[in-house]
């Protein structure tokens, strides 16, 4: 048998194969490319959603860069992402390490810690809005029952505490998710590395920083990417708990877009803000991936 006879036939490049990809391409075109193209068009118009759109060139984009609330929304989302990196990723990592044991009860604790993930974000937001309510909320009721009336605060009604409250709820919701990712990776680290380190006299803290963290680097980078991109897309918690208030103190790009589009009937401007958000997320993701790519290069 000639050598060439054993080769797998190359994937055909004939025009007939276009037929097989046509349904997928059609769906992609109709539901992804077309909306993207029309969004780009509407971003250059003044459009209330009621009357016909009116072409205004770059006016919406110029306005966006002068809109103090819009600019502040990026500061808020950055703070939120930093907060979530600490409360979700870091705390998830710590919990994964602490609960990395087969002893009795640890699997139940892991399950309990993961359980908020089964709630939808909207349900979690509504639930915590009740807990943090100034008048009837659980938190203030507990504080008052201990005689700490002065500590009872309108957590979601004052600028100083509203964003922190949302970060806390987000941490409560997602830390378990990151814990599971880290926990799965921890289980794959060979035990003999730790045994060797112990024989060499390394304590648990040194083992964590010299063995655990370096071997979790890939998972860490993935989790950071998820937290950053998820943070930019953050909407449901903000919408259900504060809707951007008080005084735009928790306004993030997504809530500001919704407010412009549907409260103020400025769909053209809202679409321009959406285009800007998409570009920002794309740039952040590309920069991040580039940095990660460089970090993964093995130098000899």
């Amino acid at each position, binding site marked *: 048998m000639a050598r060439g006879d054993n080769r797998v036939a190359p994937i055909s490049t004939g025009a007939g194969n276009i037929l097989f990809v046509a349904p997928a391409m059609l769906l992609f075109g109709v539901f992804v490319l077309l909306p993207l193209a029309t969004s780009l068009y509407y971003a250059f118009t003044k459009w*209330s*959603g*009621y*009357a016909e759109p009116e072409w205004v060139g770059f*006016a919406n984009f110029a*306005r966006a860069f*002068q*809109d*103090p*609330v819009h600019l502040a929304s990026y500061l808020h989302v950055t703070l939120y992402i930093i907060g979530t990196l600490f409360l979700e990723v870091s705390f998830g990592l710590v919990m994964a390490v602490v609960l990395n044991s087969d002893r009795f009860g640890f699997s139940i604790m892991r399950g309990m810690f993961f359980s908020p993930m089964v709630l939808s974000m909207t349900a979690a937001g509504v639930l915590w809005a009740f807990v943090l309510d*100034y*008048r009837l909320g659980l938190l203030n009721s507990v504080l008052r029952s201990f005689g700490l009336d002065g500590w009872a605060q*309108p957590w*979601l*009604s*004052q*600028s100083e505490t*509203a964003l922190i409250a949302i970060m806390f709820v987000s941490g409560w919701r997602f830390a378990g998710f990151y814990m599971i990712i880290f926990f799965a990776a921890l289980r794959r680290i060979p035990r003999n590395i730790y045994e060797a380190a112990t024989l060499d006299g390394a304590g648990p803290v040194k083992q964590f920083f010299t063995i655990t963290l370096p071997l979790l680097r890939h998972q860490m980078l993935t989790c950071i990417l998820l937290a950053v991109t998820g943070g930019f897309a953050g909407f449901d918690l903000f919408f259900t708990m*504060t*809707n951007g*208030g*008080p*005084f*735009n103190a928790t306004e993030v790009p997504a809530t500001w877009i919704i407010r*412009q589009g*549907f*409260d*103020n*009937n*400025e769909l053209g401007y809202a679409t321009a803000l959406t285009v800007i958000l998409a570009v920002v997320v794309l740039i952040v993701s590309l920069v991040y991936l580039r940095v990660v790519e460089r970090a993964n290069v093995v130098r000899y």
Partner: protein
Amino acid sequence: MKHSIGLLTGCGLAILAGTAALAQTEIRITHAMSSGAGAEAFNTIVANFEAANPGVTVNQIVFDDDIYSDTGLITQLQSNEVPDIYFQWAGYPVARDVEAGYAYDLSAAMADGWQATFIDSAFSAGAGTTVDGKVYMVPLSLDITNTIWYNKAIFAEYGLTPPATWEDFMGIVVTLAQAGETPIIEGNNELWPLGNWASHVAARVVDPVKYDAAFRQEMSFEEAGFLRPLEIMQELHNNGAFNVDMQGLGADPAMAGFFQEAAVMHPIGSWLVGSEGDLAEEGFEYGQFDTPVIDPAHPAPDSVIGTITGFVVHAQTTHPDEAIAFLKFLTSPESQVIWAEAGAISPVKGVGEMAKLGEQMQGIEAMLAGAQTMVPPPDTTYPVPVAEAYYQAAAYAASGEKTSIEALQWLDETVTAMGKQ
């Protein structure tokens, strides 16, 4: 054979029933009356209409108020199956609907004597129900969008009476705050509740021409003299007037808070009366007074703030005759008596005398009768983003987040940045 005859008979009956169903005309009406006495009254009127018109059924598509105004209405107006009739606020929204081609010209229907059944001001130039002299809205209610409701028992406890002047009002606020009460509860997370009141205050102290020019972006708010109303909001804050969770509280929970005695006064619209049955305890006594005169030298020192709400027939309706017939039934004196007794102010002549109105609604009627002018809320008269910006500036000053000067500066910068609306 016997089975075959039975089957044929059954089929025949089914066809007849189907034909009858096809003969039934359905009109679709969308609105935001989701609960309370108003919704009950509306359901009663719909049931009466269907009983009087066996060939017509009314399908109500009901939304929560905020959802209706944000996304509920616009998606329906642009859908393939439009509602035959939709609820709307008079003024800017009606003009916008006419421009977009959604509103049906009701002038011909009104010309047969229907228009004469309404009070004259319902179709005046400033009422917002007409555009270029043509009628596009059937008025259903005169909504006072802000007046001050107060708890009679707490007023009596501190020996207080409704204030005659703004100074008296501030005195009441100070007395209550020093006694540890929350003088005023407001749920302002949507900005319009306090915004309506702050607009009314502005309309009482800012020159009317400049007031209009500022909201039309023809003049800055600073030049128009809006520092004064913002100073008043700041003064209220300094005197401890508002609940501390004002900016995080919704309008409905704030109303519930008033009925549950969490505060002494509650500035909100006349629709509060319709929620009394759902929210107030038995024996809860409350009264109403309008914002006292602030500047007696102002051209309209005792104006009231309000708007007309009503129904618009969609221009693409396939059942215009049935839709108009329903609206005529809805605005007949008999139906309007039911409507008014549920806590609404009817725009139909004579209904005020025919209906058995409660003390609160009688007070509102008296206030309307005694007012020189009615000013509309900015968010139904001017571009919404401009109105919302003023509402937020007022909230800044009223909560102490910014001083009145900072709030005014923020307002002008924000309105400038948004460009001409």
